[in-house]
């Protein structure tokens, strides 16, 4: 019933949006729930610079920072103080969604406490090893790990229950190894994990495609598979997907924005409409690419339900892994 109402409201909103720009944010703002220079900062820059480049903003958009708990602090803040403020887009990533799925954003908050409004872009997981590692395909690597799961160490930028750990766990599960028996080392972010890979403290790094831009060229690392549904374009076009190598291991890193839970439909539809315009604009799309992401064109109610289904999927994964009951 509620969703039907929403659809009706959406239709009504669209109608108004078509007639005239009924809503215009007075002080558009993007809240990056991290310190400056981090991933969320880039996500916010995509909307603030991308919209500017695509001429979608009459007032420049400010970027403010609210670090803490992969977005938990910002989520709580929005829910406590700015539930209906249509000015503030907040950046999130699938790392935030994973924490929401595990109830780590606070006991009373879940994915229904925000209005998910638009995507910035996506990135995909990647299986990365040192350039002098003996394996050249995912199958060779999996065979070696299967023979002795304690011999090779996986390491990535987060602990149990984090996005990076999920990638490792999915990879192991798809090759028939119990994720609980793998050797896994958590680092503080991808940079430290790459250093550990170069120093041979770990042998396998389930990282992201985006952070490997330029690194492969240097010849110290090689990428055995991308964890994407299909092959990527450009620099990574030669790298086969895990799926085509026979392993059902996929991980999409989604980056996007949400608004407060009580934001009016006018404001919500305004932003959704702006995203639709941006997705059709080359200046915006090239900003997305510059920040190391692949464009992902989804906004409004469709995006909202997509995000909620992702959280549901993650909750199932977390249950299966024994992270939550």
């Amino acid at each position, binding site marked *: 019933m509620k969703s039907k109402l929403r659809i009706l409201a959406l239709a009504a909103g669209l109608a108004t949006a078509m007639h005239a720009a009924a809503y215009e944010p007075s002080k558009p703002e993007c809240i990056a729930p991290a*310190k*400056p*220079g*981090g991933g969320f*900062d*880039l996500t916010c*820059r995509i909307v603030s610079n991308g919209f500017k480049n695509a001429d979608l903003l009459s007032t420049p958009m400010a*970027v*403010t*920072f*609210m*670090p*803490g*708990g992969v977005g*938990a*602090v910002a*989520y*709580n*803040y929005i829910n406590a103080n700015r539930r209906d403020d249509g000015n503030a887009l907040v950046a999130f990533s699938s790392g935030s969604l994973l924490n929401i799925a*595990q109830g*780590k*954003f*606070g*006991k009373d908050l879940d994915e229904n406490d925000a209005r998910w409004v638009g995507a910035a872009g996506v990135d995909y997981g990647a299986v990365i090893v040192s350039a002098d590692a003996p394996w050249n395909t995912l199958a060779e690597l999996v065979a070696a790990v299967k023979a002795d799961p*304690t011999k090779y*160490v996986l390491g990535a930028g*987060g*602990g*149990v*229950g*984090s996005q990076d*750990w999920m990638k490792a766990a999915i990879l192991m599960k798809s090759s028939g190894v119990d994720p609980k028996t793998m*050797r*896994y*080392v*958590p*680092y*503080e972010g991808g*940079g*430290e994990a*790459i*250093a*550990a890979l*170069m*120093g041979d*403290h*770990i042998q396998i790094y389930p990282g992201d495609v985006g952070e490997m*831009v*330029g*690194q492969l*060229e*240097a*010849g*110290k690392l090689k990428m055995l598979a991308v964890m994407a549904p299909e092959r990527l374009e450009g620099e990574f076009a030669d790298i086969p997907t895990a799926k085509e190598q026979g392993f059902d291991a996929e991980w999409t890193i989604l980056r996007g924005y949400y608004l407060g839970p009580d934001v009016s439909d006018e404001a919500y539809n305004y932003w959704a409409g702006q995203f639709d315009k941006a997705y059709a604009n080359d200046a915006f799309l090239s900003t997305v690419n*510059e920040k*190391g992401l692949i464009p992902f064109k989804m906004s409004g109610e469709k995006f909202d339900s997509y995000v909620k289904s992702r959280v549901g999927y993650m909750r199932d994964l977390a249950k299966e892994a024994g*992270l939550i009951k």
Partner: protein
Amino acid sequence: MDVFNHLATGFGVAFLPLNLLLVLLGCFIGTLIGSLPGIGPINGVAILLPLAYALGLPPESALILLAGVYYGAEYGGRISSILLNVPGDAGAIMTTLDGYPLSRKGEGGRALALSAISSFTGSMGALLLMVVCAPVLSQFAVKFGPSEYVWLMIFAFTCLATMVGSRPVKTLVGVLIGLVLATVGVDSGSGVLRFTMGIPNFFDGVDFLVVVIGMFAISEIFVLLESWARNDLGVSPLGKSFVTVADLLAVKWVVFRSTIMGFLIGVLPGTGASIASAVAYGTEKRFAEDENEHFGEGDIRGLAAPEAANNASAVGAMVPMLTLGIPGSGTTAILLGALMMFNITPGPLLFEQRPDIAWGLIASMFVGNIALLVMNLPMIGIFVRLLSIRQAYLVPVIAMLTFVGIYSIHGDSFDLFFMVLLGVVGFLLRKLHFSLAPVILGLVLGEVLEVNLRRALSISGGDWSILLDGPITYVMAAATVVAVIAPSLMRSIKMRKLLAKANEVED
């Protein structure tokens, strides 16, 4: 030689009028930002990053500006440490230990000049090391694994064991309080939330800067209030002291050792200026058990060591960032982000593909450091005058700056309340003759120790023998053993010398 050609290219870039102007500007802003309590290099770089981007500067110029702010702030942090006992940033905590007593004695000018020269020497020495052996060092940095970090932390704790404080047991309590604070937040290994009491602001742990500023700056305000109520706001004698050649000769080896230590610690990812200065201070104190040793009461060696080390570590942190694309500290992580914004990927290819950026930056750091020294020495007279400002004006300014600085980290009032609470705790601890530096160091070192110990055990699958595996661990373990027995060894050598002398006299 190759290096000289590269450096020549670099100086060509650094001496462009725009870049010269930017490096001077960056150093000046950095010194200013560093000297304000609560606002450190991270804020400085983060503040100027969007500005540099908006100004449309070419990438090498933007990087030169931001790097200038970074090491300028490392320079400026000492000023309020020495004069007000309030560290300007995290790397300057150890500077309060001997710097403030000096300025209480009316030797503020001497302390400021000496620390400026130590900082300068530390940076220049580290820069030379960087130019000569950056590629080797980046290899060293990646070979430094979890076990090696564990030993580094144990070594640091050993050096700190005899640190300041009225009684060893109180130092120990302080360290433990810091260590406990370090466990708050999401556990990096298991993802379990520890001691957060359900407060999301604690999910990422207790913010280091909030603890530093709360315990030092806020508690200092309480100390000033008490002195005022007792009517003994003993205004420190101003004095016209300045550093002497004898001072410089006395600390030359201290500075030399601290520069190397600071640089190496800076090169390691995850350890920065605060650890570097603590290890340098601890080591110097540990090995300087002579009759003139009065660390903690205004020993110039206790001032020179952390200052040389924190500046050297700021340079060292650039090595893994430039050569591997891995940040060596929080601030370089932001610099790295800045490079990415300009579509430049730091890493092994940076030196080959964009030598103008890599060498231009290095050359500009030489220029910047000279500029900092030249800027700072004549201004010492002005800085010292800070001491003659009446408390009725100084205290409101300190309060304002600390609140602004802490608020700007997260934009949340929660941190302000927490900072005040920590200020009360810090004040009470000080009244009970606890030194606060161990608390802070426990907080910094504890996290690195726990995380790396557990990483090492994850790699080995629970086998503790991984802690003694490989040449670096042997060396570090041996260094730790030496640090444990050194003081008693030194004493016995001294005794023997005295005995020998006594015998000679008898003969």
